[in-house]
């Protein structure tokens, strides 16, 4: 049983079939990449999993539980985290506050307790602020912790989004094009970071990505989508050399870069 199972997922918008009967399985503790040309439906898949869209058909299981009837925020309370393609950080808040906001689900003091700063509320604030510090140090953001997020360079804002997703202590992490906006060197660091996160949180990761060097470097398995449908699945090596994938997406001029090439 995998960490995340997508079974015969279908979603259409009006007459347009965005996803058609897609299935794949993210093994526990692995990095599973979802790749394909633009418009293949990859982000739609993420949105269905996060329940921002209602899937029309199929099942989605997170650690064996069917989440198709859950509210979106309930999913994120159950230790799923995600980042977005279009940055959705809180620009007017500091980096620290952005990440601290994500600790909401770990705090249980009521409104009244918080209004009068009763002991439980104070303790929870202290403990969670500590946690945020740790995460920021891990991602190298502690230097800009108290700066306004909107004023930071794009790449750093993406890191803040990652930090926020991590603050949820997710067991399943959905990453939507995390490499966008990073140069080659940064992408390398990002790959290492993702691996470290994976080990720290013992998380399983679903990675939607266009940057092939990142995909090939860290993925355990890859599913390829085309026109909303399943095209191929396999190890990085298998996908790189799959003629259908090369035809539809990678292109004839593509040079295989995965291990064993």
């Amino acid at each position, binding site marked *: 049983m995998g960490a995340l199972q997508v079974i015969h997922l279908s979603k259409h918008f009006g007459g347009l079939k965005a996803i058609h009967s897609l299935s794949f399985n993210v093994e526990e503790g692995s990095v599973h990449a979802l790749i394909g040309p633009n418009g293949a439906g990859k982000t739609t898949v993420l949105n269905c999993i996060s329940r921002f869209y209602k899937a029309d058909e199929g099942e989605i299981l997170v650690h064996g539980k069917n989440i198709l009837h859950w509210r979106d925020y309930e999913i994120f309370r159950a230790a799923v985290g995600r980042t*977005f393609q279009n940055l959705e950080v809180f620009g007017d808040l500091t980096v620290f506050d952005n990440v601290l906001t994500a600790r909401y689900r770990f705090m249980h003091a009521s409104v009244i307790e918080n209004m009068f700063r009763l002991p439980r509320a104070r303790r929870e604030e202290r403990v969670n602020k500590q946690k945020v510090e740790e995460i920021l140090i891990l991602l190298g953001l502690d230097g800009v912790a108290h700066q306004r997020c909107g004023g930071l360079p794009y790449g750093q804002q993406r890191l803040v989004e990652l930090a926020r997703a991590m603050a949820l202590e997710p067991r399943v992490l959905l990453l939507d094009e995390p490499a966008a906006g990073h140069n080659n060197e940064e992408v390398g660091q990002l790959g290492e970071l993702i691996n470290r996160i994976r080990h720290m949180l013992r998380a399983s990761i679903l990675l939607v990505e266009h940057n092939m060097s990142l995909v090939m470097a860290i993925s355990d398995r890859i599913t390829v989508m085309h026109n909303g449908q399943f095209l191929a699945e396999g190890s990085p090596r298998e996908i790189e050399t799959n003629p259908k994938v090369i035809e539809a997406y990678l292109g004839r001029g593509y040079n295989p870069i995965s291990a064993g090439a």
Partner: protein
Amino acid sequence: MTQMIISGIALGTIYGLVALGIVLVHKATGILNFAHGEMVMVTTFFALTLHNFGLPYWAVVTGTLAFAALFGLFIETTLVRRLIGAPLLTTALVCLGLFLILGDVAVWIWGKDPHMFPSAFSEKPISLGQVFLSPADIGPIIVCGMLALGLYLFFRFTKIGVAMQATIDNQTAARLMGIPVKRMFALSWMLATMVAAIAGLLIAPIIFLHFTFMQTILHFAFAAAVLGGINSLPGAMIGGIILGVVTNLVGIYFSSALKEAMPFLIMLGILVVRPEGLMSKRIEKKV
């Protein structure tokens, strides 16, 4: 009962007309004009002034329409232009501010007393078999019907109308096609104010003209707009008619207190069950 239904329809078309103005502005500029009722009020008072000068009815109507166009243009240039694209809280509050200002302006110019307003139609009932109808009952229906038809033709077949429709549907595309979008906004406000003026001319004979007379009607108009779909022009009219008929029937068969609460209840009901109204399309947010 037929009597009630027909007068309900008459009333409903008037609500629909006011709602039409609101929807027109919302579709064109994304702004929900809470001050629309007050704009109706001001144009109607202007009409009263023209009437008091002794002008014949047709001159009053033309004069008022001209005033309405200019008034709409004035508001658009001074306020609305800056508001396009601003967050909802801002636009709503500016409109509410306008609501306050227009109220005081009206009192300053025309005072606080209620006034009678002449009707375009005679009150004498004509018998049509079982039912007694007066031109005053049917008149509004005919006027609104013609207006609705006129607007439909305008948006469909005239060059300006098509351009306006295009701007409403897709601002960016319209701009790229060389349509002067800002001028379209101005035109839609002018049109909406003129529609408002006509609504006022139809309403004022029924209730006394008074600086607060539009406040409850605005409530009905919003309910009609929401019922029909805040982005649908025909929806506004249909919503109004449904609201008019239902309200009248409820007033007869249940209680008149419930009748007062109808717009509110219908609004809540629709917003909970189908927020986009009867005629609008469902919109899913894209992330």
